[in-house]
């Protein structure tokens, strides 16, 4: 039984945007002629997760056990008016930020890790496995698995593994086992290492390794982002935000979030989609990964090995290897199909920001609000600051999703701050 005074802010259901999309969501498609990668999902995902991936239910009840853990890890997260930032920018309107960095693992990722680990535990499997970029998702997976007494095998993109050793420490503290990807634990990883020994790794390679590991060890694969189910679980962010704005008597004119695969962004913004077109919604990506401006809206591989089904999404190509950028969580080549559809329809706008803009935004946010945001979230903050500069005399209410903290990402600033 949940007794928190904040319970009223937490939604009782996850929200699934599919029934409210303006056109049908293209289903996943097998990438190989004689093999059903869709059926493969049956073997690697918990049944309930799979059901939720393909459901048309607008609302899915959050199990009590998951609600309990949501509360334990810090939900509801705060919605804070950034008055200092408003003042610093000389803005006549209002800026709010939803702070997912306040969760136990320091990002939004735990919102879907908990239910997925819960459903895996209910099936009595040997453990869970996944890939991770910057390590936020790996940390969330490790903690969620640990909460339900499951081992977790995590494949961390090699460049991030080397750049962020403390993430490995965090995952180990949560009882997770972490290896750099490509690794020698899987056939696919060994093949990549043989062909490209100096590869920095990609999320696509990590996904392929995790799927192979799940199949070989009776583990369940944890879906970090892109697939609809993860966005559905993340809808707690947007639903809480709506409720908190309502309590404050406010209405969001503009919503801004960053996009790697789309989970924090979709979770934050999709609950506002049924309300009509009056809220402007902006998705920010890294200048180095310009998926919405230079990617194609097409069926493409989710992972580089083509193990998972193809999805119709904005994509730079599954073999896209981005520069070794400072925001590992934004290196992914594609974006979730539902988000891609809404971008393609023009309902959601996109923006790209440069590394220098992001670092300036992170510094400004730290100096004004005291929060050291994750580099990924810094993209959303940079877009918000640019938006304010372009609309200085307007009186809009802007809400930004600060999807995580950056306390383990300080190396991006180098020696001199």
């Amino acid at each position: 039984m949940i007794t928190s005074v904040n319970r009223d802010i937490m939604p009782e259901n996850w929200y699934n945007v599919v029934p409210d999309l303006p056109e049908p969501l293209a289903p996943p498609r097998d990438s190989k002629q004689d093999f059903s990668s869709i059926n493969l999902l049956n073997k690697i995902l918990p049944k309930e997760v799979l059901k939720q991936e393909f459901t048309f239910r607008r609302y899915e009840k959050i199990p009590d056990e998951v609600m309990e853990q949501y509360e334990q890890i810090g939900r509801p997260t705060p919605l804070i008016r950034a008055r200092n930032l408003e003042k610093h920018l000389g803005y006549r309107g209002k800026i709010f930020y939803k702070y997912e960095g306040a969760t136990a693992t320091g990002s939004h990722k735990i919102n879907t890790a908990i239910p997925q680990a819960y459903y895996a535990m209910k099936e009595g499997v040997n453990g869970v496995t996944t890939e991770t970029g910057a390590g936020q998702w790996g940390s969330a997976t490790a903690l969620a698995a640990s909460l339900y007494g499951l081992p977790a095998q995590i494949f961390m993109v090699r460049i991030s593994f080397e750049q962020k050793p403390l993430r490995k420490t965090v995952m180990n503290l949560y009882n997770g086992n972490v290896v750099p990807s490509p690794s020698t634990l899987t056939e696919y990883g060994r093949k990549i290492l043989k062909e490209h020994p100096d590869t920095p790794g990609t999320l696509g390679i990590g996904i392929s390794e995790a799927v192979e590991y799940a199949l070989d060890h009776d583990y369940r694969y944890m879906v970090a982002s892109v697939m609809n189910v993860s966005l559905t679980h993340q809808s707690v962010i947007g639903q809480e935000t709506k409720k908190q704005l309502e309590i404050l008597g406010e209405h969001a004119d503009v919503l801004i979030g960053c996009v790697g695969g789309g989970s924090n962004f979709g979770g934050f913004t999709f609950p506002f989609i049924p309300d009509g077109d009056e809220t402007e919604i902006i998705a920010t990506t890294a200048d180095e990964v310009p998926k919405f401006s230079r990617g194609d809206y097409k069926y493409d591989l989710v992972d580089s090995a083509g193990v998972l089904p193809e999805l119709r999404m904005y994509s730079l190509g599954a073999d896209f290897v981005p520069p070794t950028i400072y925001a590992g969580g934004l290196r992914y080549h594609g974006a979730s199909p539902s988000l891609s559809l809404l971008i393609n329809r023009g309902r959601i706008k996109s923006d790209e920001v440069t590394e220098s803009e992001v670092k300036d935004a992170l510094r400004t946010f730290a100096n004004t609000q005291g929060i050291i945001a994750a580099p990924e979230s810094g993209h959303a903050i940079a877009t918000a600051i640019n938006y304010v500069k372009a609309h200085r005399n307007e009186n809009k209410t802007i809400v930004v999703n600060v999807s995580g903290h950056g306390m383990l990402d300080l190396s991006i600033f180098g020696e001199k701050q």
Partner: protein
Amino acid sequence: MKKLIPYFTLGYPDNSRLCRFLDILPVEKINYIEFGFPSDDPRYDGPVIRKTHSVGNSNFSDSVYSKYFDYFYKNHIKMYSLSYFSDIKDRFDEFIAYLQKNRFSGIIIPDLIIDYFSESRGVIEDLNKRGFEYIPFFSPATPDSIIKNVASLTDSWIYYGLQPSTGIEIPYELDYTTERINTLLPGREITYGFGIKSDEDIKNLMKNGGSGVAIGTYLVKMIDSGDEKGFVDYINRMRGVLDA
């Protein structure tokens, strides 16, 4: 009477074996028949049906099929084409004329509202003008508003796919599925397909107001094995399940 709709890909596994199974098909037990016209990219079919398209493409022979089209028409079996818009869009007029000449009643186009959404209304209205049935194909991923809007463009029966592609086994909530479509389209004739797995499923679909089922993947497996007796027995059994 509940509708039983067997599916065959033209040209699969070869014309002589396909004809053999069409010959023994107990026409008195079926209501409609669905013919898949081989596609270069049957993207919304599972691996079993996909294979039939690639084989059927190389065997397609209009002269072989025309007598069967005539035979089914004369036996009052409504014929429907299952065709991908990606294959027919550049020769649409010619293809629909061909179907009408062979006395098909209508067409199912699984990729129309997914991949060609902006063109779909025009295509449906065009088919309406020609007096040719467009059978809306919906799935669990079709938004509510689209189901209502597309269904309103036609009076025909509805094809509701239970799965993202044929022959796939993703868990679905049967009762909730039927409740949803019945609520969105009260009084419409709803036929279910894409992943029906058991007699029990069929019974429940009918109990919940379904008007029929389309069977494809399972028949292909029997055709593959050359199991003529099993094929006839299965059709008879399905009739019994639907009528129970």
